[in-house]
């Protein structure tokens, strides 16, 4: 997803030892990270972890107590107009002049920027064509969020901040917003995203940082975060009638157990193990019902890292099923 022509260029966002406290509370307790140009970077974390404080410092809305912050090489605390000209912001719960229509608002905000995108092109992009001449106060929650997105993109920004952009969307609208974000990174835009939705982070982000209590506790590609790619996989299927656990083929480094009538096989080599089991079943003409192979999901890793769940009980935790 990276634009190779920008490799080696200055990062879009640089944060070094950022600190912000409110009295005794360390909302952000010394975090560091960089976001490359053209990257989609996602900040995940429970409420109160310091996500919004971090984003709002990057956007120039809040001051910091310590550390260095640069967005496009500019300190957002300087209130630089040039920086605001090149960034687009979707805030949580942020109103508009609600007596103006969708088209009027996009037109009005567009004029503030040196570059701007065409009104109808943006309306099309966020799928509000049917609401073009409707006043903002008459829009539904999801339509308002789409208008927010359009207003964030109206200045054709280099960096886009999206603070929980799809909250309140129905599934179809979320997929629409995701494809909009993907089209942004195809254009080489940098996207800084916070979200509560694991699938959103999984689908959109090049890299994810997980925050807890003001600190970043894990950072990396969504499929590698917290050693996710190194965790054992789990194979499950119904024990075929007339067979017992001991009849299954013996395999090295594999744990087998029976949970009710379901067989659970934990393996670090899912392909080899699955092949051995299915080969065994095919030879004997046995049907393995509800056969599945799963890896721990981003959500499993997230819950484990943020301490929101006990060390995972692999059977009961929600898993993303890749049904074979």
């Amino acid at each position, binding site marked *: 997803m990276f634009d190779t022509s920008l490799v080696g260029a200055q990062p879009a966002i640089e944060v070094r030892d950022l600190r912000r406290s409110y009295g005794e509370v360390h909302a952000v307790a010394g975090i560091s990270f960089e976001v490359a140009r053209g990257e989609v970077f996602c900040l995940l974390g429970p409420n109160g972890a310091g996500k919004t404080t971090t984003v709002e410092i990057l956007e120039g809305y809040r*001051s*910091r107590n310590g550390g260095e912050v640069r967005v496009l090489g500019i300190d957002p605390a300087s209130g*630089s*107009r040039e920086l605001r000209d090149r960034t687009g*912001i979707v*805030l949580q719960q942020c109103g*508009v002049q609600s*007596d103006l229509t969708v088209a009027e608002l996009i037109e009005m905000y567009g*004029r*503030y920027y040196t570059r701007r995108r065409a009104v109808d092109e943006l309306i099309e992009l966020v799928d509000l064509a049917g609401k073009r001449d409707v006043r903002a106060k008459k829009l539904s929650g999801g339509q308002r969020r789409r208008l927010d997105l359009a207003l964030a993109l109206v200045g054709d920004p280099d960096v886009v901040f999206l603070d929980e952009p799809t909250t309140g969307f129905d599934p179809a609208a979320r997929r629409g917003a995701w494809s909009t974000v993907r089209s942004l990174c195809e254009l080489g835009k940098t996207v800084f995203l916070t979200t509560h939705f694991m699938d959103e982070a999984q689908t959109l982000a090049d890299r994810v940082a997980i925050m807890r209590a003001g600190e970043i506790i894990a950072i990396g590609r969504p499929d590698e975060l917290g050693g996710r790619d190194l965790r054992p996989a789990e194979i499950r299927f119904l024990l075929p009638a007339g067979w017992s656990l001991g009849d299954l083929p013996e395999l090295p480094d594999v744990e087998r157990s029976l949970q009710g009538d379901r067989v659970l096989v934990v393996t670090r080599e899912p392909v080899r193990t699955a092949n051995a089991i299915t080969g065994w079943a095919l030879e004997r003409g046995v049907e393995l019902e509800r056969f599945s192979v799963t890896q721990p999901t981003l959500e499993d890793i997230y819950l484990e890292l943020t301490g929101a769940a006990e060390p995972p009980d692999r059977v009961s935790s929600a898993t993303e099923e890749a049904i074979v």
Partner: protein
Amino acid sequence: MSALTSRTESRGVSRRDLSLVLWQVRYEQRAYWRNRGRGVFTFVFPVMFLVIFGSLNTNSHLRSLGGISYDTFFVPGILAYGVIATTYVNMAISTAILRDEGVLKRMQGTPLPRWAYVTARIASTVLIVGAMTVVTLGIGVIAYGVHIRAATLPGLILTLILGTAAFTTLGIGITRFTPNADAAPVIVNLTVLPLTFISSIWFPTTTMPKALIDVAKFFPIRPLADGLEYAFNPHTAGAGFNGGDLRSLAIWTVVGVFLMLRFLRQPQGEVV
């Protein structure tokens, strides 16, 4: 705070910024006239009071004010009330709503300079005051036979300008003290309505106790009403400048600008 120095903004006002102000005025106007609720509260009320009170007291004269007709007293009083409604009341309520709904925060995140946005909001308000003045005086002249005197026109205009300046800036500035948008109409009514009764808006207050007159004269409503009535009073000599009233309005403008700047300097991100 930071070791690396950041680029500083050029402080000059460019032609592009001025055209941005005009651009914003257009949209502020559109939003104002479209919002029926605000239009009623700030524009229709004063006009309605003008018609009601004017109709109740036709052909009466005020001996306490040298025998001038009631209308000559009442039309400038309502004009003063109209100025306050379209500036102070309008600004105090709409700014609290813009703040609570996060519009001010959103505007702060755009490249539109804050001064340009505020200037456009004020300029838009001045246009509304102009419309209010035309409607009020138009009805006063046509329906109630009030005379606009050429001699005192300078006084009338200067009083209107200072009144608009004082009440617009006070309206923005008071937002600092309104906890939320729901409280704004309450605070506005509490600060305006009681004072109008002792400020010669609805009826003359010549027989009022001295202490109440002093209270009324301390606040800016009475100076605005008195200043406008002075310009309309047929007994007024000269250009219609009532020094004491103008001085009071000027002082309240300074207070208003001070409060407005204090409100505007708060970063919106830290408020919510």
